[in-house]
């Protein structure tokens, strides 16, 4: 795939309940911010628009169609949607540009999870014969995975708490949009009672409402616009079996494969933003990506600081891109996930121009 430039990114605050906003009211401010950063007005000024969201979150059928009201889509635009995290809307947009059918694209993701009970809603994305009728929720499945790692001594509860403490501290230092931020010690975290043992509540990402948006384009177009940009040097995504029992839950084979294909090891990884909804999964992902102490992991706090379901993956890519565009780093890795226990994973390598 040819190199593609990220020219802007915007994200809303992560809020537990953005009740006063409908979908359009959530989306419009971030789209306006992402577009204005490159001097664009609305979706008429890009060649393609693609969004990611899931109607089950707010229980509103075709909510993503309502979202189009935020775009200025008259006369009709070239538009598409994925019922997935918007990181996959970015992937579709990159294909569109690579095929020569567009030079620029607007991508946005949004999630309003507050109207429903998200872990219960997510139980219904599972196997409809064997699992959905049991209503096994997403937190419980992650807890089963964590136990496997703990039992085998592959990590400790201290390791998990350390991930949370770093997330909160990073969010406090770097992320004005975070829902959970602050100084908390490993000892304080371990003193808390288990919630879905072996997970404590802080091992699990919060539930957040909000949206994020991004503008991408060809390298030629980015130069013509004359704005700083980050280059997507490699991207790949892989999916594992829906049968959790048939998977090796101690590692992320799909992330390993996507990382190899995207070329993660072709240079130093200064920063990595990983979509790890549960603390132990950040450790699995770091290992799958071959990261060590030389990489700053989740400087934004990651999704433990706020999880915009269906936008968080795009936001991980945006967080890395922002740091490259500002000149803070020259090369970084972004990751997005979907499904129970890291079933489906996308890895992108971003570099300075």
């Amino acid at each position, binding site marked *: 795939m040819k190199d593609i430039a990220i020219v802007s990114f915007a994200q809303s605050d992560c809020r537990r309940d953005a009740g006063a906003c409908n979908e359009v009211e959530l989306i419009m401010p971030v789209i306006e911010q992402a577009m204005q950063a490159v001097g664009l007005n609305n979706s008429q000024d890009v060649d393609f628009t693609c969004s990611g969201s899931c109607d089950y979150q707010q*229980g509103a059928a075709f909510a993503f169609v309502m979202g189009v009201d935020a775009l200025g889509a008259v006369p009709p635009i070239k538009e598409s949607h994925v019922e997935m995290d918007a990181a996959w809307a970015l992937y579709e947009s990159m294909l569109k540009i690579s095929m020569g059918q567009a030079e620029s694209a607007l991508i946005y993701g949004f999630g309003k999870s507050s109207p429903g009970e998200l872990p*219960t809603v997510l139980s219904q994305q599972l196997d409809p014969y064997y699992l959905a009728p049991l209503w096994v929720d997403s937190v419980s499945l992650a807890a*089963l995975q964590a136990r496997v790692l703990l039992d085998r001594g592959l990590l400790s509860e201290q390791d998990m708490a350390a991930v949370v403490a770093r997330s909160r501290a990073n969010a406090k230092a770097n992320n004005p949009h975070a829902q959970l931020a602050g100084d908390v010690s490993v000892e304080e975290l371990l003193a808390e009672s288990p919630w879905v043992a072996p997970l404590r509540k802080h091992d699990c990402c919060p539930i957040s409402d909000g949206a994020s948006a991004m503008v991408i384009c060809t390298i030629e177009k980015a130069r013509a616009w004359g704005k700083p940009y980050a280059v997507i040097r490699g991207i790949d995504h892989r999916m594992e079996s829906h049968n959790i029992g048939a998977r090796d839950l101690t590692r992320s084979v799909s992330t390993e494969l996507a990382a190899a294909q995207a070329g993660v090891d072709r240079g130093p990884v200064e920063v990595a933003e990983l979509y790890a909804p549960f603390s132990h999964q950040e450790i699995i992902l770091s290992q799958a990506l071959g990261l060590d102490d030389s990489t700053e992991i989740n400087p934004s706090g990651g999704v433990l600081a706020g999880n915009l379901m269906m936008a968080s993956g795009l936001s991980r890519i945006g967080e890395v891109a922002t740091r490259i565009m500002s000149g803070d780093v020259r090369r970084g890795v972004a990751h997005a996930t979907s499904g129970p226990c890291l079933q489906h994973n996308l890895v992108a390598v971003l570099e300075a121009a």
Partner: protein
Amino acid sequence: MSDLLRQQFVLGYTYTRSTGPVVGRFLTELRQRKIVGTRGDDGRVFVPPMEFDPVTASALDEFVEVSDRGEVVSWCWISEPRDSHPFDEPFAWALVLLDGADVPMVHAVAAPEAEMHTGMRVQARWSEEPRGYITDIACFEPEVTQGEG
């Protein structure tokens, strides 16, 4: 906005699902209080049965009956059950590896938290009137062997 309007509602998806031959066979056997899996190309027995081998993608049609007893390979403790969960009292979700199977299945375990441990032996508690659903196995519970209780 202080005067924000909210309205609770229930969204119902009242679907009937075709099972296909493999899932249908599994559910038909469950109704007889029997548990079957399918054998994968590498010899692994998947319970509940998979229709296709996750590695080779070939259709699986060799059915293998397995025990309704097995071992917990992972578990988590639900101290505050959700409305949708099968029990009002605290319980465990577990990965249960049935005797004769090579791949564990997800199901509930009804047992005191103090008794829960990886490697514990469990047995299926069958529902009163099995109907051909995964919930015909009401849950697993600590195994009772002859000579005990």
